């Protein structure tokens, strides 16, 4: 790939990328290296890193994949905030100097690559899967579970988490506490509590309302501020606290999980739905 051409993509200006470099096999400590990058209007920070790798330093390492803000791979600390590199255009940062460091609160593997196992381990502790008492139905499903549009709307925004880890980088409690479940884990735990198909609230309660659960959140709001998908972890956590508080005053409504919808056999008579016309082509079986 050649550099951007002025007449094709608009005016070119030079922005200095200050990138943290750290090779554990060679370096004793991380250091910042500067790369002047020619920038055009629609270039994202990820495009800038790709330009550096292609033209200046092929050893620069980071994670990226979809380049469109949905895989969650390219989380980095860019100009003072955890952001997705692919989701932020360089000109929108309004600076002639872009400082890129790996996500804080995660160990560094190399250069800009964080070790996200911390987040995945915490995520596992909240059992992020549908739990039903009827295990046979879960293992061999006979039909769909009922769920209305309103019931879906009550939790679906929390299901849009792409596990990018930006929220854990932003959270002040994660900065000091290794045992705090974190905004991502607590939001996913509460997503299942709000899901009307789920019957596993009691199993998750021990983790969500423990001494390192929702009560170690103090509404700094930084997690929601940086979340690229609008998941709003802070909202999920405060809703969990609300449920616990008013539940302890016996105001919480008891809710039964939704049931399995009966399966309609193909071609069966269903009340109110007109029968299909006869097939015009010979049918097998």
């Amino acid at each position, binding site marked *: 790939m050649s550099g951007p051409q002025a007449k094709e993509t608009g005016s070119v200006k030079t922005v200095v990328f200050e990138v943290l470099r750290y090779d554990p096999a060679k370096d004793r400590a991380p250091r910042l290296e500067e790369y002047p990058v020619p920038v055009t209007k629609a270039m994202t920070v990820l495009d800038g890193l790709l330009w550096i790798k292609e033209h200046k330093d092929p050893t620069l390492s980071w994670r990226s994949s979809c380049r469109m803000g949905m895989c969650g791979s390219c989380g980095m600390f860019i100009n003072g905030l955890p952001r997705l590199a692919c989701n932020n255009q360089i000109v929108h940062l309004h600076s002639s100097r872009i400082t890129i460091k790996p996500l804080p609160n995660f160990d560094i593997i190399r250069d800009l690559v964080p070790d996200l196992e911390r987040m995945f381990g915490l995520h596992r502790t909240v059992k992020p899967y549908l739990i039903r008492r009827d295990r046979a139905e879960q293992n061999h499903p006979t039909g769909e579970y009922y769920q209305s549009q309103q019931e879906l709307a009550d939790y679906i925004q929390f299901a849009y988490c792409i596990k990018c880890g930006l929220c854990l980088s932003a959270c002040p409690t994660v900065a000091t506490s290794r045992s705090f479940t974190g905004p991502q884990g607590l939001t996913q735990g509460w997503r299942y509590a709000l899901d009307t198909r789920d019957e596993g609230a009691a199993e998750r309660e021990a983790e969500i*309302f423990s001494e390192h659960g929702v009560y*170690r959140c103090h509404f700094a709001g930084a997690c929601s501020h940086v979340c690229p998908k609008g998941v709003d972890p802070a909202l999920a956590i405060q809703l969990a606290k609300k449920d616990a508080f008013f539940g302890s005053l016996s105001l919480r409504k008891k809710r039964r999980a939704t049931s399995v919808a009966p399966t309609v056999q193909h071609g069966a008579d269903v009340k109110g739905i007109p029968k299909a016309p006869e097939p015009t082509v010979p049918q097998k079986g």
Partner: protein
Amino acid sequence: MRESKLWFWHILSAVVILVFLGIHMGIMHLDAILWALGIGSGDPVRSADVFRRSRQLFFMVTYVILLGSALFHGLYGFRSMLWELSLPRAVEKAVGGACALAGFALFIYGSYVAVAVFRMGR
């Protein structure tokens, strides 16, 4: 869950403190304004005023309530702050125990003072 109960009382004690500390701050630090409105002598720490209040049942009871709520609220907050510092489990337990002990001890001392002064002039 134990933590849910503690946090519930943390919020409730905050509301109690808002009411009673609000009154206390009003008497202590809005004294010039209250005096201009005809309430109080304008010098709330004068011993005559202090002992006049201390001998009223309303103040004795509210001092004890304020003491208990503020000690619980403050020490629970302090303990929570320390528990977020990734300390070893044994140290965390010791911190929790020390906060509880300090809270009880200070509550007993403060209540004793409130009741003793209340009974002084009787």
